[in-house]
């Protein structure tokens, strides 16, 4: 049964491996390069620090590390865990669609064992692939995380990539056993995967735990939000209400001296309902909590969907 599971899943496993090898081929050299430059350019001194010099140093460092991180920033690589999960569901769905399950189920092994082995194989491969994906990017991001904190590449690091592959696998299996045709099932499941990820990333995630908020004077250094996930930040009055005036206020409050522009008068700005910055954010310390919640969410839904698919297949006539 193990040989059969491997033989039927061979192509999908190879595609997954190939994807990971391509990613590793691109990001391992880039990661080594980034770590070397990090040491050479002494960027570590700017970790957690805001200054003009550090702004330049960090900007310079990012530019010199190459284009790959820009690609990672674009978010397209978020599609990969889904692709892997969906691909690993295909052997089982094709078996169901082609009627070859009737061959497997009329050999000497029970249907229960067939389902357990096939699903075990798919889940195992998905978890392994998700873990390798995560290890690659968590390692690659080490120097960048020292500058920007873990939040920056939340979707690529630590536990959540594994949950994403499981989620995609579960979706494809569940949709597949309901509509019984593998090609449309994979397309629909992938669409739901992308929609689910976008929904969580752009709406749900920031609400999982009520974010913190802070209002600080524009002239003060304010809290260190370097490693935090800043959800929104805007000019405000002292109470933190957004500034609603017109840009004319800047002219009115500008202080000029002999050398020209000297800055804004804080008292004047406060009078016009400005002079402060309001930030809503999740602190760096909550990173692990959020990883845990999002892992539980996606992996939990994924496993529930897989269990649903198993139940449907077990009862199928």
């Amino acid at each position, binding site marked *: 049964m193990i040989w*059969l599971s491997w033989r039927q899943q061979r192509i999908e496993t190879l595609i997954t491996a190939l994807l990971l090898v391509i990613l590793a081929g691109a990001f391992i050299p880039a990661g080594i390069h980034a770590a070397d430059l990090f040491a050479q350019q002494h960027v570590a001194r700017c970790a957690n620090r805001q200054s003009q010099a550090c702004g330049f140093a960090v900007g310079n460092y990012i530019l010199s590390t190459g284009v790959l991180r820009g690609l990672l920033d674009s978010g397209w690589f978020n599609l990969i865990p889904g692709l892997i999960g969906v691909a690993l569901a295909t052997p089982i769905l094709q078996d169901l669609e082609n009627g070859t399950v009737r*061959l497997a189920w*009329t050999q000497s092994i029970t249907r229960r064992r067939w389902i357990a082995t096939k699903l075990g194989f798919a889940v195992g491969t998905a978890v392994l692939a998700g873990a390798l994906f995560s290890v690659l990017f968590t390692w690659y991001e080490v120097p960048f995380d020292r500058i920007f904190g873990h939040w920056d590449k939340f979707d690529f690091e630590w536990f959540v990539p594994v949950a994403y592959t499981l989620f995609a696998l579960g979706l494809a299996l569940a949709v597949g056993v309901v509509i019984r045709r593998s090609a449309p099932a994979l397309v629909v499941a992938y669409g739901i995967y992308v929609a689910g990820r976008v929904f969580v990333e752009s709406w749900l995630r920031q609400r999982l735990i009520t974010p913190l908020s802070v209002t600080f004077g524009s002239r003060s250094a304010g809290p260190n939000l370097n490693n935090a996930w800043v959800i929104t930040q805007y000019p405000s009055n002292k109470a933190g209400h957004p500034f609603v005036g017109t840009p004319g206020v800047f002219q009115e409050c500008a202080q000029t001296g002999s050398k020209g522009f000297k800055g804004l008068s804080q008292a004047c700005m406060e009078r016009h309902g400005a002079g402060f910055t309001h930030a809503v954010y999740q602190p760096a310390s909550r990173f692990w909590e959020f990883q845990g919640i999002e892992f539980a969410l996606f992996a939990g839904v994924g496993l529930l969907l897989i269990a649903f698919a198993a139940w449907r297949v077990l009862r199928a006539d």
Partner: protein
Amino acid sequence: MTAALETQALGKRYGSQWALRDCTLEIPRGSVTALVGPNGAGKTTLLRMAVGLTSPSEGSVRVLGLDPEADAGDALPRVGFLAQEHPLFGGFTVAEMLRVGRELNPGWDDDAARARIAELGLPLKKKVRSLSGGQRAQVALTLALAKRPDVLLLDEPVASLDPLARREFLQSVLEAVAERGLTVVLSSHILAELERVCDHLVILAVGRTQLVGSIDEIVSSHRLLTGPRDAAEDVARLHEVVRESHADRQTTLLVHANGHVYDSRWTVHELDLEEIVLAYLGQDAARRREEAVA
């Protein structure tokens, strides 16, 4: 000894539609049974329930005394099943298909399987997808036989084959019966091709069992009677009338006779199996027409 296949008021419903209903039959061990009925009579459903692919909606089914679902672990190794479309993994080679059989069946007879494939002249390295329909059927049958089952269930095994492949396929089944003494049930909507190999017959119609028995018994117990119309009722009192037709003065009855027909008013003719089966299937068709009208 328990029967090879036994059903009690077995029924299967899909939605509001009964695929099979009130099916009670017993197929003895060592027999080769033809399961005959028109398309949609429930033959496939019956065989699938016998191997545990489908759950009964009512009644019970036993194979070698075992429940195919509850006792799957014990029943499956002893039952061979060949689905109508001869499913095989298309991308696998013939050798890989044999490996599937070996991996999934503890009782697998690898020597016999390889010998069979060699005898048929099938190349081991060829992909199943590129084989002809007849060759695929033979590979599927090899898988079912090398498992060394006690009961072999074949669903419309020759429907998709050309006449030559049909002959070869049925020949293979007969050889296996002779060698191993296994029980075979094969379904078909055409009787002619099975008559040569079978010794028992089950007729399924309108999703119900119509007739079960050995072919010799069936042939010897059915008679065609011709006689006066007014005497038909007397016959119906003693014997089961399968089909009747009336001319001006004369009535023709096809009866399942309960012993001999001793009435001198009737002329008694013997029938061959095909005529008997057609009479039952005709009765079924008439009933369906009535149901459709109603």
